[in-house]
């Protein structure tokens, strides 16, 4: 095929160029990653035979401007709206207004939690952990980090009343998640040793011995990091914990190179893209918009079925640890939950179920759903305070 020589874009009318620039701008506004090079190519395409018909130009532009499947699905609509001025059907308006009144956003949960509890603070019985905070008489050297960690470490999240303390707990949860990642990688590097000979390095080292390769350098498959998939329960029964857990998850996602987060209540929402925002407050805002209907009921089995059906094949590989953060109170059928857990177990390496209720005195996992899920869980651990979250690290490092 002889390459087509495109005419210089100079003879394309200025009006059309402005229009194209406007189109590119509206694509960028819609989250498309479009650079200058693409615009230039788009201009060149206007000169090609493909521009003679609207739909062939649309296909060409779609191939040029799209970068992922979500772009691909939205492109036609944006194109038609811009060039043919057909209205874009907007779902945002409807969901935005109706949901506002009845449902809580994550932001509200995280921010308002302290103040909401503040009003009833007088009635709440103080916990042993809190007394530590007052006296400052804490066992030392448990974990690096600020001293406040010692104080807050053992307080059940639901018993933290002071908004400031809550904010500190949130920050600590996030920092904890970040430090986990650092330590995990350090451990990985030390284990390098492999079955194959690395000739390049062996020869480099043989120079010291006059060209005789005495020191053999080995190489092997690189230790790859574990992929973490987090399923976070954001239903009403978890209200006391959702705030701090979302911060924890945000910290994990920010630092694990391969991590995906899903949030579920009565349905499952993929929130990784929202949480990729570095700033915690903005990330939570975006997540709140995606996850309308938080603080309602729970359908764990349906959320898991959704996950298994639509996401599992994509996000799970053989070194994936699935972490479920939930109290296990499910309105669905326990048998179904058991079956879905079994299906999930077959796919991934480990399932860790973190249940804040384990920290409560006298809790037994007898709730129908929890009992059905338990046989398929590798680690069933408490997650009611910072110490219990920190205790996860050695477990994750072993995988």
């Amino acid at each position, binding site marked *: *095929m*002889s*390459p*087509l020589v*495109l005419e210089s874009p100079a003879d394309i009318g200025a009006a059309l160029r402005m229009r194209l620039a406007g189109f590119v701008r509206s694509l960028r506004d819609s989250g498309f*990653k*479009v*650079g200058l090079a*693409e615009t230039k*190519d788009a201009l*060149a*395409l206007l000169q*090609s*035979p*493909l521009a003679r018909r609207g739909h*062939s130009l649309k*296909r*060409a532009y*779609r*191939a*040029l401007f*799209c*970068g*992922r*499947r979500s*772009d*691909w699905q939205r492109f036609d609509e944006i194109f038609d709206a811009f060039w043919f001025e057909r209205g874009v059907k907007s779902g945002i308006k409807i969901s935005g207004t109706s949901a506002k009144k009845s449902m809580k956003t994550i932001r509200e949960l995280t921010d308002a939690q302290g103040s909401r509890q503040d009003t009833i603070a007088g009635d709440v019985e103080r916990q042993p952990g809190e007394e530590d905070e007052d006296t400052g008489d804490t066992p030392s050297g448990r974990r690096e980090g600020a001293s406040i960690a010692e104080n807050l470490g053992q307080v059940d999240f639901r018993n933290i009343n002071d908004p400031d303390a809550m904010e500190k707990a949130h920050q600590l949860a996030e920092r904890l998640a970040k430090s986990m990642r650092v330590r995990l990688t350090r451990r990985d590097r030390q284990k390098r040793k492999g079955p194959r000979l690395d*000739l*390049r390095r062996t*020869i480099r080292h043989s120079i010291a011995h006059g*060209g005789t390769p005495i020191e053999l350098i080995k190489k092997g*498959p*690189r230790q*790859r990091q574990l992929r973490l998939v987090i399923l976070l329960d954001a239903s009403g029964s978890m209200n006391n914990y959702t705030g701090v857990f979302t911060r924890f998850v945000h910290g994990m996602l920010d630092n694990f*190179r*391969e991590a995906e987060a899903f949030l579920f209540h009565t349905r499952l929402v993929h929130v990784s893209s929202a949480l990729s925002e570095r700033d915690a407050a903005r990330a939570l805002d975006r997540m709140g918009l995606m996850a309308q209907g938080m603080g309602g009921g729970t359908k764990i089995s349906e959320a898991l079925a959704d996950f298994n*059906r639509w996401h599992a094949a*994509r996000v799970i*590989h053989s070194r994936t640890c699935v972490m479920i953060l939930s109290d296990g109170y499910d309105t669905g059928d326990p048998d179904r939950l058991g079956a879905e857990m079994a299906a999930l177990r077959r796919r991934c390496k480990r399932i860790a179920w973190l249940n804040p209720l384990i920290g409560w005195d006298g809790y037994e996992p007898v709730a129908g759903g929890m009992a059905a899920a338990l046989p398929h869980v590798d680690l069933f651990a408490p997650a009611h305070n910072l110490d219990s979250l920190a205790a996860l690290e050695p477990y994750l490092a072993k995988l």
Partner: protein
Amino acid sequence: MTLDRDTFAKDLAETGYVADDGLATALLLTEMLNRPLLLEGEAGVGKTEVAKALAKLENTDLIRLQCYEGLDRSDAIYEWNYQRQLLAIKAREGSGADAETVEEAVFSEKYLMERPLLAAIRQDRAPVLLIDEVDRADEEFEAFLLEILSDYQVSIPELGTVHATSIPRVVLTSNGTRELSDALRRRCLYHYVDYPAPDREARILLNRVEGLDAALALQIAELMAKLRKEDLAKVPGVAETIDWAAALIGLGTKNLHDARELVFDTLACVLKTREDQARVTREVTDRLLGKVA
């Protein structure tokens, strides 16, 4: 070669690949704009076949780089032939040649082993370069892939920079097991390959399977479309349909409705997990067949 899309699609069909309009346009653009084409889609929708068909159409070589976890420079671009280098050094030891000469000799073309990416830019005639399942490779690999795809040159410290003698047409495929970087996506043209609509799948079958008539091809394609809507663990791809059609022809089927038993018995061609086989029972098969014209 013309730049008309319909002619191009027809030529492509003659090589055995039935493309839809969007894909044909995208393939034309790879040539016009000199950009790589990134194909995404489920396993088994024929992404790899696109590159093969393109190479056949252009009557040129197909150079394939299969990506995997841990793929690095030495497997993808070039590697020195260390064994031969060592031997060469030993052989010259007695000859009294000075170090400079030995070094020059040892780091020459003769001891360089080309890997697919280097090979692709050193051909006389522009080949088709297929970078398969790029999502399986690491992010580091993506970075130097990007470098090669924008400049079409490779720098080898011991030898200097190797410039492309011809610019290959690059097709990348991805199954979406890992999110690719925005930089790579922006550099590439993009096409999402979906399961083909029944009429296109029927055309693919007619193209690929000997002795199949149009009516039966359409029946099979429609049944496959229905089957894919069932709740399956592993949704069958186009390759499975082709296998199945060949199996049915081999067993002498003329019409699916006359051979209900045979249809059920040969489902092994398309259902590849135990759960799926258990799910698609005789009744389900009959129900699906009932919806097919």
